[in-house]
Every structure is written in structure tokens, then in C-alpha cells.
């Protein structure tokens, strides 16, 4: 997976425009200084867009491209390349590759002559897509050529890769369009460079798992410091976990919608053993009486050989110790930590970071579409603490993982709150367990792929045998997500 930092150039400076409006340009500074700040490794590929050129139709920032090309970088240049002469001009400046915009769909003859003149490895066709339809002329109109036609043409010209952007995605909110890249897998052998919406480490891992994406262009997230190139792991084969949850009250498994309307769902030991046999990677027990039912914990712990996380009503270091002694491997703390954050640090120092799970029940706050509040007392009481900031703080204090439950989605089977998951998993380095809302097998994929979760949790879906743990793992494996 090639990470390709992207710089938009205007008047010799790196800038970012909002909605393509030149008057809104935010200036980041000299391109070489920006590159140094981003710590772009030598040999890397760099995506450079000459904004003035794309407006005026002739190369402008040739001096900068010449300077950048002298560094040990492969510079791919885009911006209004409309003739073989323009292309030659950029290549003479040292550009390694040329990104040609709408010609792939609009002007097949020009694309063909560019490929013939400079070779297919020099040319990167850009394909912009909205709702499965190619857009041309600055996204203003739909192309008459279908995706199938255009990619067939690219294959004919033996172009090895194409830069594909889903322009309908609001990047920061939903991330890259995994579904678009996945659908292209069946359509073409051309390798894809994903562009637009790449903003977290998880996005990059998920793109690499698709198998047909060979690189991704990263702009805003790097410039704003939300993502650093050195933070991106090379591994993408570590299994993601599927975790059934037992909500326990009075020694029985119970279930309810949004923590209310409780009803009986079986014996905890029987459930636990069945889940392990189905391939559960871990088990979570939440004691919804918040009474830390030690006897039930002990009975379950003694019947399984997978890790057990227990939460519910942990108020003190002693409560924590009691649950570990009863057989829990990890303990989730929630309300008590929000009321007194230092509890996280104390537990991490006493029992190790690996034993401390922060359980965060988050509810959409209504202030903005991307704002969630942490709640206490099993979601019943909303605090004025921002859920994302709280998770970040918990990581600093020593939480080893975050069990993130969407109170809005819990029990609704309408899907995980992927935006919440993205917001938290992009803000912390520790793992996030997605919880609340699983209804279909694809929801688990989305929580990991788009949400950046390292584990997915469900309760009623598994209790009611709508899906088995094995069903979920088979589906994830088929989607390229490693599972045990």
C-alpha cells in the first residue's frame, strides 16, 4: 500500500480550498517546508495539484515541481493537462507521473496519444465517481461513458493504475468509499489509487485489505496533523475479534432495548460455552445490576478458555481486584471513571494497562452531527463530557482498550454508529470495540472497515440466533478482514 501525500499548489504555496473556491484558500506555506514537516520518507510518491493550471489550462508551478523532483521523490502532477505539449512540459520539469483528469471519459483520443507518447507507466488516469456514475468537467456533469466502458479502455491501453475518487463522500465523516472500490474489483484488473476521505490509520488498513487498491492519496488529514505517516502500521493481517456480550442480572442473561424493557435470555455458562464453540474470540459480561455478581463471573470463567472482560458497577480498585480474582482477564470501568478519572490511572498502575477497559456509553448530543456525549448509569444520565475527548483522556490515563457503545443504536439492530466509531478510533491509538446496533452481518464489516474498530460486539443478535459468531466471521473473512 503506497501512501501518497497530496499537496495543492497556488501562487507557489501549499494551500487547501473549500469547495474548490479560490477565495477560501488556506495557506500552509512553502512546499518543501511542508514536506519536511510531514516527514515524507525518501523514495515516496507525491501527488501535486497545480490549481492555477487546472483553472487556466497551462502549467504554472513548474519551478516548484522542478525543486520537488530534485528530492528523492516520485512526483505525480495533476492540473489541467490538456495536450501532449503540456504533458511534455511537466515531464521535462522532472515529474515522474502525470494525472490526467476527465480525459479518460471525455477525450479517449488524447488519453491514447499521451499513453503512446510517454508510455502507460507515466500516465495516471483520474476517474471521479458519484453514485456509480462518472462525473466530468469539474464534476459538473455526468459522463455518458459507463464505469465498465472507461475501465475497459484503460485496460486496453495497458494502464496499470487509476486514481479513483468518490466525490459524494464527505471525507471526514464517513471515510473513503470502500463500497466503490470493492465494486470495481469485479469490473477491472486496473489497480486503484484511492482518493478522498482517507483520514485515519484504519482507513489505510481497510483499503489495503480490499486487494485491488495499491495506493491512497492523503491530503487534509496529513496537513492538519490528524494523521502522521509514521503512525501507519505495515501489518494488516492481525485478526479482528468478534465478541458476544452477556448482559447479566441475578445470575441470568437478560436483554433489553436501550437498556430498558429487560427480558430473560438464558443461562450464562451455557451461553458462554456455546459462544466459545462457535468461535467467539472473547466474551464480555456486563452486570446490569451493577452489583458485580462474583459467583456468575467465576462460573463462566471456569467454563471457557477465551479471554473474559467483565464490567458493571466497578467503583473502586477493590471492586476491580475482586473481579480479576473471580476470573476476569480484563475489567471495564464506566460511570466511576467519569466521576473520578484518576481511577483509570490507579487501576492501570495496579493491574496493568492490558487489564483496564474503558467502557464509554455515548449518545448523540444534538449540538452537531459529529458530537456525542458520554453518559453514566447505563446510558440513563447524559453528562456534558464530550465522548471523543473522554476516550482520548482515558487512553492517556492508562486504559488499554475502549468498549464504545452507542446508546442511540443499542438494541435497535439498525447498524453500529460508524461515525462515532470513526471519531473515536481516529482519535486514539488503542483498540476500540464497537458496540450497540448490530443487526445485519454487513454491520460488523462496516464497523471494522469504515469505523476503524478492532473488535465488534453484539448481544441480542447472538442470543436470538439471528446470526452465529461463525456467520459473522465467515462474512468478515470473505470481505478480506482477517479473523481467527
Amino acid at each position, binding site marked *: 500500500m503506497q501512501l501518497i501525500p497530496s499537496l495543492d499548489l497556488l501562487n507557489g504555496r501549499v494551500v487547501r480550498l473549500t469547495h474548490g473556491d479560490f477565495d477560501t484558500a488556506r495557506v500552509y506555506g512553502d512546499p518543501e517546508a511542508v514536506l519536511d514537516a510531514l516527514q515524507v520518507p525518501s523514495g515516496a510518491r507525491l501527488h501535486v495539484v497545480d490549481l492555477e493550471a487546472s483553472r487556466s489550462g497551462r502549467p504554472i508551478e513548474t519551478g516548484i515541481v522542478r525543486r520537488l523532483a530534485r528530492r528523492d521523490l516520485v512526483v505525480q502532477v495533476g492540473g489541467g493537462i490538456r495536450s501532449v505539449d503540456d504533458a511534455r512540459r511537466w515531464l521535462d520539469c522532472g515529474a515522474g507521473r502525470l494525472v490526467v483528469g476527465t480525459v479518460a471519459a471525455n477525450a479517449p483520443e488524447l488519453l491514447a496519444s499521451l499513453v503512446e507518447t510517454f508510455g502507460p507507466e507515466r500516465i495516471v488516469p483520474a476517474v471521479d465517481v458519484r453514485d456509480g456514475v462518472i462525473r466530468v468537467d469539474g464534476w459538473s456533469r455526468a459522463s455518458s461513458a459507463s464505469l465498465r466502458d472507461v475501465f475497459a479502455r484503460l485496460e486496453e491501453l495497458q494502464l496499470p493504475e487509476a486514481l479513483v475518487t468518490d466525490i459524494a463522500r464527505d471525507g471526514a465523516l464517513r471515510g473513503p468509499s470502500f463500497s466503490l472500490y470493492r465494486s470495481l474489483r469485479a469490473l477491472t484488473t486496473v489497480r486503484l489509487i484511492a482518493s478522498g476521505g482517507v483520514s485515519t*490509520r484504519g482507513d489505510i488498513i481497510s483499503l489495503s485489505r480490499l486487494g485491488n487498491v495499491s495506493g491512497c492519496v492523503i491530503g487534509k488529514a496529513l496537513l492538519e496533523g490528524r494523521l502522521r505517516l*509514521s*503512525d*501507519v*502500521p*505495515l*501489518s494488516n*493481517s*492481525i*485478526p479482528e*475479534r468478534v465478541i458476544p456480550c452477556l448482559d447479566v442480572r441475578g445470575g441470568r442473561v437478560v436483554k433489553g432495548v436501550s437498556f430498558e424493557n429487560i427480558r430473560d435470555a438464558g443461562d450464562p455458562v451455557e451461553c458462554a460455552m456455546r459462544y*466459545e464453540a462457535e468461535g467467539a*474470540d472473547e466474551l464480555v459480561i456486563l452486570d446490569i445490576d451493577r452489583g458485580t455478581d462474583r459467583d456468575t463471573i467465576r462460573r463462566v*470463567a*471456569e467454563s471457557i*478458555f*477465551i*479471554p473474559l472482560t467483565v464490567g458493571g458497577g466497578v467503583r473502586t480498585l477493590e471492586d476491580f481486584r475482586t473481579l*480479576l*480474582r473471580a*476470573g476476569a*482477564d480484563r475489567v471495564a470501568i464506566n460511570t466511576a471513571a467519569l466521576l473520578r478519572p484518576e481511577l483509570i490511572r490507579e487501576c492501570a498502575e495496579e*493491574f*496493568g*494497562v*492490558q487489564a483496564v477497559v474503558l467502557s464509554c456509553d455515548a449518545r448523540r448530543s444534538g449540538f452537531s452531527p459529529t458530537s456525542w456525549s458520554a453518559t453514566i448509569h447505563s446510558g440513563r444520565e447524559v453528562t456534558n463530557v464530550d465522548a471523543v475527548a473522554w476516550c482520548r483522556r482515558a487512553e492517556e490515563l492508562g486504559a*488499554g*482498550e475502549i468498549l464504545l457503545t452507542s446508546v442511540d443504536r443499542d438494541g435497535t439492530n439498525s447498524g453500529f454508529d460508524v461515525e462515532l466509531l470513526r471519531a473515536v478510533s481516529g482519535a486514539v*491509538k*488503542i*483498540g476500540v470495540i464497537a458496540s450497540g446496533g448490530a443487526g445485519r452481518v454487513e454491520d460488523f464489516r462496516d464497523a471494522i472497515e469504515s469505523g476503524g474498530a*478492532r*473488535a465488534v460486539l453484539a448481544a441480542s443478535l447472538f442470543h436470538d440466533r439471528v446470526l452465529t459468531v461463525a456467520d459473522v466471521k465467515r462474512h468478515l473473512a470473505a470481505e478480506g478482514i*482477517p479473523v*481467527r
Partner: protein
Amino acid sequence: MILVDSPVANVANIARALRAAGATLDVTRDAAAIARASKIVLPGVGSFAAAMTWLRETRIDAAVTEAVASGAFLLGICVGHQLLFDFSEEMGTTRGLGLVHGAVRRYEGALPVPQIGWNKLRLNVGRASARPPRGRRAEARPTSPLFEGIEDGEAFYFVNSYAARGVASEVATADYDGPFTAAVQQERVFGVQFHPEKSSAAGLRVLRNFVACN
């Protein structure tokens, strides 16, 4: 078989798993009994230095070394596995038991530390640090008897911040933003960085294989 009763939380879990794997178990801190044992399991969680201090104070370090010298089988689990090495870089440098050559170092990379979760083993690894002579393919080592019946790529449960890398005695590796030593074997001394007692059927199989060693 003796399970060293280290003052750590997971001894009871390991005892339960070993019994499920068919072991007749004596859970003890008696150094004399350990020195005479023919098969020993050494567990450990928490810090390397604290575990080593405890072993020295109880003289179990010498007892384990003596038993191994007289031909005992030994299995170290997690920090127990790390204790087998020459030293660890946890909190400065702390000497280990030196039964297996190599050192234990902290994970570096983009992934969160500690590693918490399942990871897939590569078995049949050659000497990871040594390149094969020019023109020859790397010779796959035979799988350790510890992994009899375990398929390459099987996942095990890990909780660790430190690991050995590329040591001569490694018989399994895993990848955590770079390869690390997941298991070692040097004659009758075995070590596993993962938690077999938390690794479901595959973990029990590894323990059964150790129980069957003779």
C-alpha cells in the same frame, strides 16, 4: 508435572487449562520439589523485573535451572517465556534465566502497546535472523513437537508489550508491525509468548502436546 505458583493472577487459569489438557498437576512454590521435577510450567504476567526478583528470592531460579540441567522439560508462558532469555530491556536491563539465548525488547512501531488480542503464528520458521547461503533456499525447520497438530496460521491470544525477535531457537513467529518470536524451543526448554490457557482449542492442544512430551 509442576506448575510454579507464581504470585500472579493467571496461575489458576493455567492450572485449569493444564488439567483440561490431561496433566496431573502439583501447584507449588517449593524450590526443592521444583529442582527434582521432570516437567515444569513457569507462568508469569506483569513485569519481568518483578518476576525475576521473586524467582531469586524464592530460589526457584536455581531450582528451575537445576531441573533443566538434569533433563526436565520446561514450558514458560508469557512473562515466563521471557524469563527464559538472557535479559530483558524492561526497566533498564534485567538478567533472565539465560536458558535460551536472546533478549526481550519493547515493541516499536505504529501499533498500540501492549498488544492485546489474537495473532496468527507462522510455524516452520527457519533461523529468522540468518540468511541462507547464496543459491540455497532457507531450510524450514521441523515444527516443534509443541505445535503437533496445529496448522500454520492458527491464531493464539497475546497480551504483551515486550518480545524477543529473530532468536536462533524460535519455532514460531507472529507479526506485530514486524515479526517477533512467538515460541522458542531449545532441546527440552519451551517458551510461548502467547497465553495457551486463553487460546481456546488451539491453546489446549499446545498444552496437551507439552503434557505428552517425554
